[in-house]
Structure formats: C-alpha cells, structure tokens
C-alpha cells in the first residue's frame, strides 16, 4: 500500500504525516510506504485544492484538514 501526504510542508502536513505513522504503528501495518508530495503541480494533479491531503493507493481520502491517528487508521482500514 502506498500512502501519500500532500502538502507543501506547512505545519498541518507535518502533523498529518505524524498521525499517519502513528496510525500505521497502532494498526500493525508494515507493508505500507509513506511518501510526501510537496510539489504544487503534483498536488494539483490529484484534484485537491486545500492541503493537507491524504491519498491511499491513489484515492483521495481527505483534503483540507488533519484527521487524528484514530480516524486515519479507520480510513486506511476501509481503503484496504
């Protein structure tokens, strides 16, 4: 599974990335890679217009807010 955090490096994107890592650790998922997408043109290609964005296997799950670790875990579970 490929998880992408979209955002240009603002505080919210850093928080979302931390929540994703926490969620992965809590759900015991080891076969996931977490990537950061910081280039504006790349972010725009996902069709989202507010950062941060959470993309799991090329599906946009969240944009414009920071879900906490528990919610991220739920979102990842439902996307599997």
């Amino acid at each position, binding site marked *: 599974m490929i998880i992408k955090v979209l955002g240009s490096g603002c505080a919210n994107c850093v928080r979302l990335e931390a929540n994703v890592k926490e969620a992965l650790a809590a759900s015991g998922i080891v076969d996931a890679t977490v990537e950061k997408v910081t280039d504006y043109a790349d972010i725009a290609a996902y069709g989202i*217009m507010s950062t941060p964005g959470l993309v799991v296997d090329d599906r946009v799950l969240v944009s414009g807010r920071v879900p906490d670790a528990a919610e991220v875990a739920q979102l990842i579970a439902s996307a599997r």
Partner: protein
Amino acid sequence: MTIVERLPETKSGIGAVSVVAVAAWVGAYSLNERMWDWLLYDRIGLDADTRVASALHFFLYDTTKIALLLTGIIFVVGVLRTFITIERTRALLGGKREGVGNVMAAGLGVATPFCSCSAVPAFIGFVGAGVPIGVTLSFLIASPLVNEIAVGLLWTAFGWNIALMYIAAGLTIAIVAGWVLGRMGVERWVEPFVLRPRTTPQNLLATANAAAGIGSRLTPQLRVRIGLQEVREILGKVWPYLLVGVALGGIIHGWVPSDFFAAHAGPDNPFGVLVAVAIGVPLYSNAAGALPLVEALADKGVPMGTLLAFMMSVVALSLPEMILLKRVLKLPLLGAYTAVVSVGIIAVGYLFNAILA
C-alpha cells in the same frame, strides 16, 4: 486525552454535550463583566476609579469576551462549512464567464472553507480547471476580506447594519477588483506551469467531484470534531494578536485624549481613510486583533468608514499570503492585486464616511 477525543460516539451523546456547552457559553458570556468586577474590586480590593485598575478590568473583560465570541463563531461556522468543500465550489465555477463568474466567486469565497495557506493549490486548481483568472482572484479576495470572524465581531460590537454594510462593501470590492484584474490580461503574469496543468480540465473536475464526495460522508460526530479542531487551530494562531489588540485598545481607551484622534483622524481630516489603509495594509494581524482597536477608536470619535477601511486593509492583504502567491503570480500581478484592492478599500472608506456622516 484531548477534549476532541473524549467526545461521545452517539448522536444523543453529542446532543447532550452540545446543550451543556451552549449553556456554559451563555453563562460565561453573561457573567463575564460581573466576574471580573467581583474578582478585581471585591476580592483583590482594587479601586475601580483608578486608571490602572479600570484598564486592567477592561483588558481581562474584553479578552474574555472576544475569546468567547471567537469560540462560538468559529465552531458554528466550522461545522456549517463541513457541508461545503472548495472542490465543489470549483465545480460550480467551472465554465462560468467573467461578470457572473466574479459575482458567484465572491459569494462562494465567503461560504467556502479556505485557509490562506492553501492559496496556491486553490489558485492552481481553479485556473487549471478553466476558471478565468479574474474570477479566481475574486474568490481569493473575498475569502479573507468577508470572513466570519470580522463580520461576527463587527455585528456584536456595532450592530447588524454595520456588519451588513461591511459584507456588501467587501463583496463589491472582490467582484470589481477581480473583474478589473481579469480585464488587464493578466495571463502573462501567471507562472506558466499553472496554465499548463498535467491533467485536463475534465479529469480535474472528475477528481474534484470525487473529492467533494468526502464532505458528504462525514458523520455528525466528525463534523463536531472538525468544528472543535477549527476552534483550537484558529484560537492557537490568533491569541497573541488578540492580546496585543486588546492592550492597545485599552491604552487608547484610557490614556489617549479624545481630541488627539478627532484632530488626526476625525471626520474633518480628508486623509483619514488613506492613513488608516496605509497603516492597515502592512500591519500583520487579523480581525480578532483589529476589532479591539476599532472599538476603542470608534469610542474616540474616529468615523465608521475610516474604521471599516482599516479593518478591511488588515484582513484582506497580508504579507505571508503574498509570499505564498509569489509562487504562482509574478510581481506585476501581485502589485496590481494589492493596488486594486487597496483602492477599492479606500473608496469604500470615503463612501461610508459620506453616507454615515
């Protein structure tokens, strides 16, 4: 555990918590003044007639009042805005012509959840989906200018007619400024990568519609949670400006003689609005920091048009947003943007001074 994590999971649980929270808010707001009276004058024994004691009282009372108002306004608007996404707004604006498009963009700019930190992806997203640049700029101008905090605070401080005038003026500036900039043929001043998106407008709209679906899947509990997160985030950002604003307001209130402002920024000074905007544009603050100043200055006889122009210039144009937008807009366009919006604000200031005099 934070408050957000402690929220009950069920609908009735959320309802019960909401009732208690609303009661606590109303209680705190109505007891605010008496509570500080009691603490400072009765318990600590300060003399209410001394300048320092009344300034301290004003500082504590006003900070509490504005913090409570902010909490209420941000939460309600935050929850309401979970029903709208910027991606859906783009789908509405796609294919709209200039003119009608500018009017719609300004209106949607007010309603759509938007943080200036997303100004760049929003700009790319709109322009990439074929929304004209002038229409996109109307959205970007209206969003901070007519924000819920400025309007809510003006309403509680000066009544609904002033708040409505502010909204009407802000929307007019956003519509006209976006239209004027669009007419100037500003495409040449936009960074080329924005105009050559990697995906087609149709593709973008498809992903946008999918992303818009995210909003409709939220549970009531999640909406409340998002509202609370919004409160925490915005209060965490604005509190230093609020404290400085209330402190300056208190100093103006207690120490600066009334004839000082009457002489320098009163109705008879033709340059009052210009001076207010010249101070407001570079001043990096926000509505929460500006309102205590505006209230104190209104008390000292500074006319309303001048004050609304000051408020608008503080919230509409900010250096950090300009630095972000520099990634997609070249300097001449940033300059034109600042100039056109400033001229609009100045015009509104003089117009309101003339109407309200």
